């Protein structure tokens, strides 16, 4: 069988491209950054190892336009095409699936991702897709599903594999029940770097302080915490699965020694904590990988890292830590189920910077309850943390209910959703009723990003970066230039609806 794992180029009416961002969100950017879809990469690698003909078909990272991408895919004559769904691109995908089915009627279209897994029937009703994966373990399910289809012509009628909804006929779907939540991640292979053309993703990515960088095969699938209400990794049927430290260390060693990468980022919802984090850092040191001019980074949450662990991570050459702060008032933190207080945020940030780590904060504005006072408190706190030098970079987004997360459901139940058109869920504008005019949230974004250009902050940044163990001014310049470009793009994207009626 010939299987394409495909990411079509999606361009909006502003000429911006859709890119998958943190936590599998999709956002549109003029100059996108490219994020390697790790679990799909593992699925592709596993199928290839089983002897299938696999096409890694990321039209975005391969810089194709839509027509060229579509032509190439059809010409390759796939037996199966696998897509990844999220709310803001669903309508696009439904159209695309039908277009693909007209061009390749026998091709089996598989829809994965957090939107269709929550509403499988919707996608089967709205387009000619054949199979919806209810499971987030795309690799484990495809590894079972593809050989099964290969060997059973009647797979639509009898399929013993759990976690699927299969089209039998136009309106007749077979639901094979909920999927297995925990999988032994050590059985799924490391991402085959050559298959996924790792260099396509090695340069334009805000999570790299140095390039070429790459994403590790994630050590935790979804999130060990998994409670934040707006997050896809929070669901009644989701828990987490963990990879062993040794297996991951082996991959780091290969990436550093055989591929010459200079930054490895692990995009697990939240990386190891406690004993495993320390074991990992010790492993890096024991293997001498901390001396190979490669930085390491990961996502974490406030509350997971203690001083002993942070000190070890710093020694092991960890630098970039991406942390969702979201807001700074206790009510919002509690309503979002963040599980920490502002006091914890400050204690953690001081610890990280004490050991030379590089905390990157993500903040959201525009929660449907967010008052002027709460908003201002977040703006003031974030600015203070940046000026004090305990946070290094940041990213602000508009809180957008997505993929039937608890926050999405809450917005529907509260009657605050202003639209049900999925195209409007692209995180470019606020789509919930708020206690103050939307323009005040857009102005807050501008205000927060303004920090990046403030002389006090720039001075602190230069002072900090020049203290980093490697005084690489070229790196400083490249990272700084990329950071400023990203800030400009973010401000443009997130404030272009300023002035339009709420």
């Amino acid at each position, binding site marked *: 069988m010939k299987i394409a794992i495909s990411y079509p180029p999606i361009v909006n009416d502003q000429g911006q491209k859709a890119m998958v961002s943190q936590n599998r969100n999709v956002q549109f950017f003029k100059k996108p950054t490219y994020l390697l879809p790790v679990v799909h990469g593992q699925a592709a690698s596993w199928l290839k190892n089983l002897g299938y003909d696999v096409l890694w078909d990321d039209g975005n990272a391969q810089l194709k336009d839509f027509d060229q991408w579509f032509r190439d895919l059809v010409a390759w004559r796939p037996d199966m095409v696998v897509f990844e769904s999220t709310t803001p691109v669903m309508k696009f995908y439904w159209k695309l699936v039908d277009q693909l089915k007209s061009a390749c009627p026998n091709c089996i279209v598989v829809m994965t991702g957090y939107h269709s897994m929550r509403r499988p029937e919707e996608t089967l009703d709205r387009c000619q897709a054949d199979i919806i994966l209810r499971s987030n373990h795309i690799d484990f399910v495809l590894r079972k599903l593809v050989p099964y289809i290969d060997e059973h012509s009647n797979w639509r009628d009898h399929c013993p594999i*759990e*976690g699927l909804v299969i089209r039998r006929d136009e309106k007749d779907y077979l639901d*094979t*029940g*909920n*999927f*297995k*939540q*925990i*999988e*032994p991640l050590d059985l799924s292979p490391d991402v085959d770097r050559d298959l996924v053309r790792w260099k396509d993703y090695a340069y334009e990515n805000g999570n790299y302080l140095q390039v070429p960088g790459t994403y590790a095969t994630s050590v935790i699938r979804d999130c060990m*915490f998994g*409670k934040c209400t707006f997050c896809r990794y929070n*669901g*009644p*049927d989701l*828990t*987490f*699965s*963990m990879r062993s430290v040794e297996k991951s260390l082996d991959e780091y060693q290969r990436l550093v020694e055989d591929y010459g990468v200079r930054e490895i980022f692990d995009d697990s919802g939240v990386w190891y*904590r*406690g*004993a495993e984090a320390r074991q990992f850092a010790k492993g890096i040191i024991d293997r001498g990988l901390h001396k190979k001019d490669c930085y390491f980074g990961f996502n974490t949450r*406030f*509350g*997971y*890292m*203690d001083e*002993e*662990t942070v000190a070890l991570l710093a020694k092991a050459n960890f630098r970039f830590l991406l942390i969702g702060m979201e807001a700074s008032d206790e009510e919002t933190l*509690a309503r979002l*189920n*963040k*599980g*920490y*207080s502002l*006091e*914890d945020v400050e*204690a*953690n940030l001081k*610890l990280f910077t004490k050991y030379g780590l590089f905390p990157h904060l993500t903040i959201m504005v525009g929660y449907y309850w967010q008052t002027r006072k709460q908003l201002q408190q977040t703006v003031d706190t974030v600015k203070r943390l940046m000026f004090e030098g305990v946070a290094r970079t940041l990213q602000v987004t508009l809180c957008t209910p997505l993929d039937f997360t608890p926050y999405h459901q809450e917005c529907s139940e509260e009657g605050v959703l202003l639209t049900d058109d999925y195209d409007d869920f692209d995180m470019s504008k606020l789509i919930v009723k708020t206690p103050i005019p939307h323009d005040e949230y857009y102005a807050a974004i501008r205000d927060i990003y303004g920090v990046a250009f403030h002389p006090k902050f720039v001075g602190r940044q230069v002072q900090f970066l020049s203290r980093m163990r490697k005084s690489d001014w070229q790196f400083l310049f490249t990272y700084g230039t990329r950071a400023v470009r990203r800030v400009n793009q973010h401000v443009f994207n997130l404030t272009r609806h300023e002035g339009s009626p709420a």
Partner: protein
Amino acid sequence: MRHKVLSVRDISPTTYVLRLERNGFEFTPGQCVNLGLPGTGVNREYSTYSGAGSEFLEFLIKEVPEGTVSPKLRAATPGTEVDLHGPYGSFVLDPQKITNSKFVFIASGTGIAPFHSFVTSYPELDCQIIHGIRHAVDRCDIEDFDSDRLVTCVSREPLEGRQGRVTDYLKETSLETESFYYLCGNQAMIYDVYDLLRQGGVSGDKIFTEAFF
């Protein structure tokens, strides 16, 4: 929210029950919270152990010797304050099913915590509890469970003539496919039990899991 420690009660050399003042804290049995010592900036998740109607809050905790938080909580003395965030999580019983469905709760180690909360909160619950532990001393407050409903599987020594893991017990038992199965504890146990349940004809839609580590 800050809660004062009322007591730390040892269950075994490795496991203890942390009792906190209730302070009006409301939760749904099975939900978890994050606990940490104020000022440390570090916390961990713990499932509720006490019942929803109890006058205090209890958590059943395994002390991980090299761990960051669990040894510190064990060392807390009465009157010490603990930071508590939550409750959250969806490892809870569907209220529509509590009185008219059968449940099987399968735990390893301190994974029995949410099930203890279920049985003390909903005494009418029609359930069976299968608890896997290494040593007999790791049994926790067995008098709180109806002895006809509790099966303890001890893997490292015989108990009442039997020795083995929960998976050994399940292999010898015929499974009720109409029951709802809740699995809680370490990932390896959950992974193995899930397969046994599926082989026994239980639908994935009837299996709920909560992994601790």
